[in-house]
């Protein structure tokens, strides 16, 4: 979760929002030419479909179908990937785990965007003492805090449960979201069309949300996608430390946590959820990287 890796490139097109449709088409054409990005997109699409159709794909109930005579078994007997420490079907739990992964990504990144973007907008737009000596120093302080420890303490402060854990992780993403929004705002705020809007007497709020914000969307989209990858890893990390999803919920992170106790007996039990996490994180990373390359022609191969 080192921020260096997930920090999206802030340098970006500060083009006024014109010819939306043409831009979208152009985006799609460039995107589909980037093979790796397409692979990432496909992985995420499969993840979403799996989450939606989990009940149709899974062969067993992921929570209550416990079989105490068939613990930690190898594949077979109607269990595609064997069973876990309560005799539940590992495959079915993996499938349902897709839902939690998506939720983890959506909640944490959603929280970070909802809180971080307005802060970044306001602070970047007005600048001044508050911006430089308070807000940005708080952001620095948060980034100087070891991120997994911030998440651990925040999760304990907010109280148990999956949602609170994801909020805690989302708070950890705030610094990068604020920075990126702010950096983008600063490149835009002095441009002609913003000055023009000011000149005709538009209110600050209107300018920020109608003229400045749309130009921040591209790097934010990249950052959000990459943060989703980080969120899934962070969820697994928190689960590893024993917090996060309720025990019966088939979160990949907690499956991994439980499987660690059986590494010597059945390493495959730890292999599958880890592989799932890896693939989804890879998907989000490829997608985020692809979007960045498409949006930032400078980085083109």
């Amino acid at each position, binding site marked *: 979760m080192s921020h260096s*890796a997930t920090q999206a490139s802030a340098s970006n097109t500060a083009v006024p929002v014109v010819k939306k449709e043409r831009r979208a088409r152009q985006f799609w054409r460039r995107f589909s030419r980037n093979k790796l990005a397409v692979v990432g997109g496909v992985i995420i699409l499969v993840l979403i479909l799996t989450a939606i159709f989990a009940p149709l794909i899974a062969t067993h109930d992921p929570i209550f179908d416990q079989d105490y005579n068939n613990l930690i078994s190898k594949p077979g007997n109607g269990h595609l990937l064997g069973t876990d420490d309560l005799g539940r079907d590992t495959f079915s739990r993996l499938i349902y785990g897709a839902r939690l992964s998506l939720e983890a990504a959506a909640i944490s990144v959603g929280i970070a965007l909802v809180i971080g973007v307005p802060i970044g907008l306001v602070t970047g737009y007005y600048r001044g003492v508050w911006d430089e000596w308070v807000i940005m120093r708080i952001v620095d302080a948060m980034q100087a805090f070891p991120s997994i420890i911030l998440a651990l303490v925040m999760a304990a402060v907010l109280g148990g449960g999956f949602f609170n854990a994801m909020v805690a992780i989302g708070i950890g993403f705030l610094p990068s979201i604020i920075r990126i929004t702010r950096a983008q705002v600063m490149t835009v705020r002095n441009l002609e069309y913003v000055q023009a809007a000011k000149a005709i007497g538009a209110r600050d709020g209107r300018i920020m949300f109608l003229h400045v914000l749309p130009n921040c969307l591209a790097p934010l989209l990249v950052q959000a996608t990459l943060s989703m990858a980080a969120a899934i890893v962070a969820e697994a990390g928190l689960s590893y430390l024993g917090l996060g999803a309720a025990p019966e919920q088939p979160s990949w992170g907690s499956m991994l946590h439980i499987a660690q106790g059986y590494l010597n007996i059945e390493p495959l039990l730890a292999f599958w959820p880890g592989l799932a996490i890896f693939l989804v994180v890879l998907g989000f990373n490829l997608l985020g990287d692809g979007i960045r390359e498409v949006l930032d022609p400078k980085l083109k191969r």
Partner: protein
Amino acid sequence: MAFLVRRLLLAVPVIFLVTILVFSLMHMLPGDPATVILGQEAPPEAVAALREQLGLNDPIVMQYLHWLGGVLHGDLGHSLVDNSPVSDLIAQRLPVTVELTIGTFLIALIIAIPAGIISATRQGKFSDYVASILAMSGMSIPSFWFAMMLIVLFAVKLGWFPASGYTPFFENPAANITAMILPMFATALREAAVLMRMLRSSLLEVMSADYIRTAYSKGQRERVVVLRHAFKNALVPVVTTSGLMVAGLLGGLVITESIFSIPGFGKLIVDSIYQRDFVTVQGAVLVSALLVVVINLAVDLTYSLIDPRIKVGKGAEG
């Protein structure tokens, strides 16, 4: 030097805010330290006595100022659990994590530099493609899962390395290194991927610059060009990334340290959180934050030394 002074000044409120942040977070944690430290069987009188002894009945602001006062005099306080000086605990644990960090970083560099150069010089070719995919995969592997798989393969199945444990370096260097290789490697993969990608893109950017083209046109061999000119200049962003990476690793090896039972700095913080040893957590997080700030400053300084054109002092953006 003006920018350096400015950066130093800006670091002061950061450190100050870190102390407030860690102090208030610890006091917001559910679980009173006296209750947690004394455990299940403690009678209420013992809990009350310990609260009094630890000064937990004082107003919260007083507690903070008292702690801060000590810190300003170089006294991080004493552990609530066993009364040992927090500075001793940190001095015992930090070197372990520093060793882990240095090892991780070296392994990452050994992988990243050749891979980055190959990838950039053969841009668009098969080897570049493979390297890019591997780098992306490396970035996406959850390090603790990778650690578990390494344990299964190299410790349980092959028995080449111990599965866990730690021997101080000066007690037995060989045992120390064999025990540290798996954890270093487990974390290094991801960092190598990040560095390699950074090196590749900055090499590409530099190699498209005019002076490199001039060098080509003068007929020097490609390798010499790359190594002599491009590589040095491409290092600038890599140094930045490295700094952030090292800073992140110092406090971020919590899970690796747990998996391998390594008594490191991250594990000290987490164990102390679990025990509600507020004073130790506060001291350790403060030290970790200081390290991050100092490393960032050093990076900025290096940055301006390598490439004097860059004026880092301008504002705090980025």
